C-alpha cells in the first residue's frame, strides 16, 4: 500500500474520486489495469501528469472489450483525439461511464455517441445498419437489415426527420428495461 502515494498525490486521487464513480481502490486497480496494457510505456508515477497515450490496439485487446462488437466505437468516443487512443484520464472516464453507478442519462448520452458511427449527432440509417451488422455478424440479409432499420426509425423517431436525434434516443432508451444492466462493464 506504500506505493499508493507514489502513483497519485492524495489530491489527484480525491479529484478522480469526485470525477468518476470509483473509489480510491478501484481507481488504483484501474490504473494497474491500464499500466498492464503497456508496462514499458506507462510510468508508475503520475504525480506530474505524464502525457502518455495508449494506442487503440492495446485498449481494444482488453478482455472486457475484445469481444464487444462496438469496442472501436467505445474507444473512439471516449478518447481525446477520437481515434481510440486513450490517456489514463480517458480510460477512467470510459469505465466510469460504463460502471454500474453511472446514471441512466449519462449512459444514454454516451450510448448515443457510440451508436452514432459517423459523428453527425444523429443516428441515421447507415448508423443503424452498421449497428445491426455488428450485432448479428452480417447474418441477416440486406432486406432484413433494412427492414429492421426502418422499424427502428419508425418506432423511435418522434419528429419524423428520418433519423434519431439524441432526444429521440433518450426518450426510447430510458424506457428500455435492460439498458442499465447491459450497458455496463464490470472491471
Amino acid at each position, binding site marked *: 500500500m506504500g506505493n499508493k502515494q507514489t502513483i497519485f498525490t492524495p489530491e489527484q486521487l480525491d*479529484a478522480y474520486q*469526485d*470525477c468518476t*464513480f470509483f*473509489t480510491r481502490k478501484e481507481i488504483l486497480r484501474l490504473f494497474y489495469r491500464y499500466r498492464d496494457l503497456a508496462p514499458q510505456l506507462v510510468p508508475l508515477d503520475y504525480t506530474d501528469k505524464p502525457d502518455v497515450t495508449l494506442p487503440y490496439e492495446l485498449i481494444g485487446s482488453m*478482455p*472486457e472489450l*475484445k*469481444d*464487444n*462488437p*462496438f469496442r472501436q466505437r467505445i474507444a473512439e468516443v471516449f478518447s481525446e483525439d477520437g481515434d481510440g487512443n486513450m490517456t489514463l*484520464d*480517458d480510460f477512467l*472516464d470510459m469505465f466510469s461511464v*460504463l460502471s*454500474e*453507478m*453511472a*446514471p441512466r*442519462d*449519462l449512459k444514454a*448520452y*454516451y*450510448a448515443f*455517441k457510440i*451508436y452514432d458511427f459517423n459523428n453527425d*449527432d444523429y443516428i441515421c440509417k447507415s448508423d*443503424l445498419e452498421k*449497428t445491426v451488422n455488428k*450485432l*448479428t*455478424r452480417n447474418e*441477416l440479409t440486406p432486406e*432484413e437489415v433494412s*427492414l*429492421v432499420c426502418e*422499424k*427502428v426509425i419508425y*418506432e*423511435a423517431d*418522434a*419528429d*419524423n426527420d428520418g433519423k434519431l*436525434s*439524441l*432526444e429521440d*434516443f*433518450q426518450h*426510447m432508451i430510458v*424506457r*428500455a*428495461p*435492460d*439498458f442499465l444492466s*447491459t*450497458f*455496463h*462493464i*464490470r472491471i
Partner: protein
Amino acid sequence: MGKKKKCALQVIMEDAGIEIDGQVESDTESEGDEVKDKTLKKQPLRETSRATRLERKKQEKDKEEDERKEEDSCSQHNRASRRKNYQRENSDGKKAGEEGSQQRERGKKAPTKDQKQSENTEKKTNKKGKEGENKQKTDRKNSTSSASSNSSDEESLSEEELAMLMEQVEQKKKLISTMRNKPWRMVKKLSVLREAQAFVEKFEGALGKGKGKKLYAYKMMMAKKWVKFNRDFDNFKTQCIPWEMKIKEVESHFGSSVASYFIFLRWMYGVNLVLFGLIFGLVIIPEVLMGMPYGSMPRKTVPRAEQATAMDFSVLWDFEGYIKYSALFYGYYNNQRTIGWLKYRLPMAYFMVGISVFGYSLMVVIRSMARNANESTSDGDDDNFIFSWKMFTSWDYLIGNPETADNKFASITTSFKESIVDEQESNKDENIHLRRFLRVLANVLIICCLCGSGYLIYFVVKRSQTFSKMQNVGWYERNEVEIVMSLLGMFCPPLFETIAALENYHPRIGLKWQLGRIFALFLGNLYTFLLALMDDVNEKLAEEDVVKNITHWTLLGHYNSSAGNGSTATPPPLDPADVPRGPCWETTVGIEFVRLTVSDILVTYITILVGDFIRACFVRFVNYCWCWDLEAGFPSYAEFDISGNVLGLVFNQGMIWMGSFYAPGLVGINVLRLLTSMYFQCWAVMSSNVPHERVFKASKSNNFYMGLLLLILFLSLLPVAYTIMSLPPSFDCGPFSGKKRMYEVIQETIELDFPLFVAKIFSYVANPGLIIPAILLMVLAIYYLNAVAEAYQRANAELKKKMQMQREEEKNKRNNKATTNPVLQDLEDLLTPSTKSESHTKQAEDKKIESPNGTRPMGKQGKGAALDGSPMAGGRGAAFSLSPHVFVTQPPMLGVRAPYPGQLRPRGHPPGPVPARGRGQPRYPHAAR
C-alpha cells in the same frame, strides 16, 4: 417605470428565494434555515434603500442602453438585468463577499452617486481580471458572462448578496458532487472541479461549513454497497436456477419456441420433485423404516410359486417378482392403523398424500397460469420499441469471453429473425376470402381425420373385447388395438401438419393448433388405455371374491388341522408365502402405469437417438459420397419437434398423476426420467437438430402448455377419484384392506382420534344441504369475478387505444409544428398574458429570438465570445456536453418559475448551438403555462 423596476426586483428576490428553497431540499436543513433567516432580514433593509436603488437602476439602464443598441425593449432590459444579477453573483461573488460589510454601511448612509460609480468601475476591472482566470467555471457563467461587464448596481444589498453567495457556494458544492455525472472529458472535469473546490474552500468558512459532504459520501458508499449486494444476490439467484445456461444456449441457437419446451420441462421437473418429496417423505420412507419388514406377512412376501424366478431380470423388467412386493407398489402397505413408535398413521398418510398430490398439482398449475397471464398483460403495453430495444440494448457489454459472445451473436440474430417474422406476418396483405376458405377446409379435413380415427379406435376396442372372449386368437388379433394406436400416432401428426400448411398461420399460432389437434388424437389413446384397465380391474374384482373364500377356508383349515391334532401348543403359523392371495388389482394397475412410463421413456430416447442423432450422423458423413446433397435434399437434419415433445411430456405427466396412487415409486422414476431427458434432449438438440426454417418467438406465457396440462390433470383425476369413491379395495393388500371403500380411512380417523364434536362438525359439513349452497355460492362468485375481470379488461383495452391515439396525435402535431413553427410561435406570443410588458410586439420579437431555432443562443454566444472572450470549449464537444442534463434539470426549474417560461431557460443551461432541439423546446412553454 419606477413601478416596473420594483416588480423586477421582487422577481429577483423571488428567484433567489426559490433558488434557495430548491437547495434546502437537497442540502442539510441547518444551512437552509440559515439562508431563510437571511432572506427574512432582508425585507426592511430593502424598504429603506429602495429609493437610492431606483435611481441607480435608472442610471444603469441608460448606460446599458448606450452599450447595447440591439436590446431595445424595456422588458428585455428587465430580464437582462436579472440575468446579469445572477451572472454578477457568479463572477464577482468573491469580491462582494469581501466587501460585504463595507457596502452594507454605505447602503444605509445613502452614498452619493459619484462614489458608487467609481466603485462600480473599480469592480468592473477587478471582475474582468477574475473572469479571465476562471473562464469556464460553470455553464451558467459561460452563458451570461457577456453581460457581466456592464452590470453595476445593487452591490449595496449585501444580505441579498450574501444569500446569493451562499447559493453560489451551494451550487458549486452541488457541482462538485455531481461532477461525475457530467458528460465531459476528464481534463475539463478536473479543471472545473479544481475551480469549484477553490471557490468553495474560500467562502465556505465565511458562510458555514460543508456538512453535506461526509453524509453524501457515506450515502454514496452505501448505495454502492447496496448495488453490489443486489448484483451478487441476483447472480446467486440465477445460479440457483438449474440449467439456466443450457437453456439459454439452446435458446440462442433455436429460438425461444424450442427453449419454451425446455423451460416447461424444467418446470415439470420442479413440480415432480415436490411430489417426489411428498410421497417419499410421508409414505415410502416411514413404511420402510417403521413398517413390518419384508416377509413378515403375506402381502409383503413373494408367493411360493414365484419365488424361484422372482430375481430373474426378465421378471424384474416386467415389474413382477421382488419389485412387485416392494414399497414401490400399493399392495405392499399394511392396513395397521399406526406403525412404529411414532404411532404414524400410515393408511391415513397414504390417503392424504394421494389426495394432496392432486391438490398440489392443481394449485401449482393454476397459480403459474395466473402468473403467466399477469406477466403477459403487464409486458404487453410496452411493445412500442421492440426493434429499437433489440438494437440498442441487446448487446450485453459484460460479455467477456468468446464463447458467450458467439452465443450472444447467435441469440441476437435469432431474436431479430423472430421479430422480423412477426413483423412480416402483421404486414402481410392477402386474399382474405381465399384464406378463410382454406382455413375452413383444413379444419373440416382435420375434424374428419379425428372422427375417423376416433371411430377406428372405438371399433377396434369393441372388436378386441369380443376377441378376448374367444379362445386361441392370433397375434394380430391380440395386439390389434396397440398396432392401430401406434399407427395412428405415427401418421396423423404429419398429416395434420400437411393440412395445416393450407391454413398458413403464423408458426406460433400454427403450433397451438397442431398441439390441440394431436392432443385430441391422443385422447383416444388415453381412452382405450383406461378402458382396457377398467376391464382388467372388473375382472380382478370378480376373481377376488372367489379367492377371498379360498383364503378364508385355507386359513380355517390350517387352524383346524393343527387344533385337530390335539396338541396344546399354538399351531405353527402358516408361512406367509404359502397363503393364497387375491389378485390385488391396485398393484396390477400400478404395474401397468409403471410399465407404460418406462416403455414411453425408452421409445422417446430411442426415437431421439435414431431419428435425430443417427440421421444427423448419416446426413453429415455420408454426404461426402452420395448422389445428391443430403443436407439440403431429402433426409436433411431433423428439426426439433416442439408439439410432439410437449405433448409427450404432458401425457407422461398424466400417467404419473394417475399411477402415483397405486405405485408410489412412480414419481421417483419420473424424476429420473425428466432429469435424464433434460440433459439428453439438450445434447440431442444442440448436436443433431437444425433450427426451424422460420424461427418464431414463443408466446410470452406458455399458458397453452399449462392449459393442456390442466386438462390432463383433470382427466387423470377422474379415474382415481372413481376408484377411491366407488370401488372396494382388495381385501388382502394395501393400506385400505378390510374396508368397504378407501375413503373410510378418513371417517375412521375422525371417529377414533378426534373428539366427538369434530365428528359432528364433519358430518354437518358433509351434509348435501350445506355442500350444494356452497357450490352455488362459488359459482356465483366465479360469475361475478369473471364479469369484473372482463370489465377491467375492456377498460384496459380502451386506455391502451387512447394512449395510442394520443401518441399518434402528438406525433402529428409535432410534425405540423416543425413546418409551421414560426407562425405558430408568433401567434402564441401574441396570446400570452401581457401584464409583464407594455409592448407585445417587442416581447414577441424577443421570444422569437429566443425560440428554439437556435438563433438566440447563437447570437448570445457570439456576443459572449466577443465581450469577454470566453470561448465555448470546442464546437462539437460543447454542443454535446450541453444537451443531456438539460433534460434532467429543465422541467422542474421551469415549473417553479412559471412567470417567464422562455426567459429563464438560459440559467438552466448555457446557450450554445444546441442541435436537434427543434421540437423539444416549444413544448416547455406550454407545460409551464
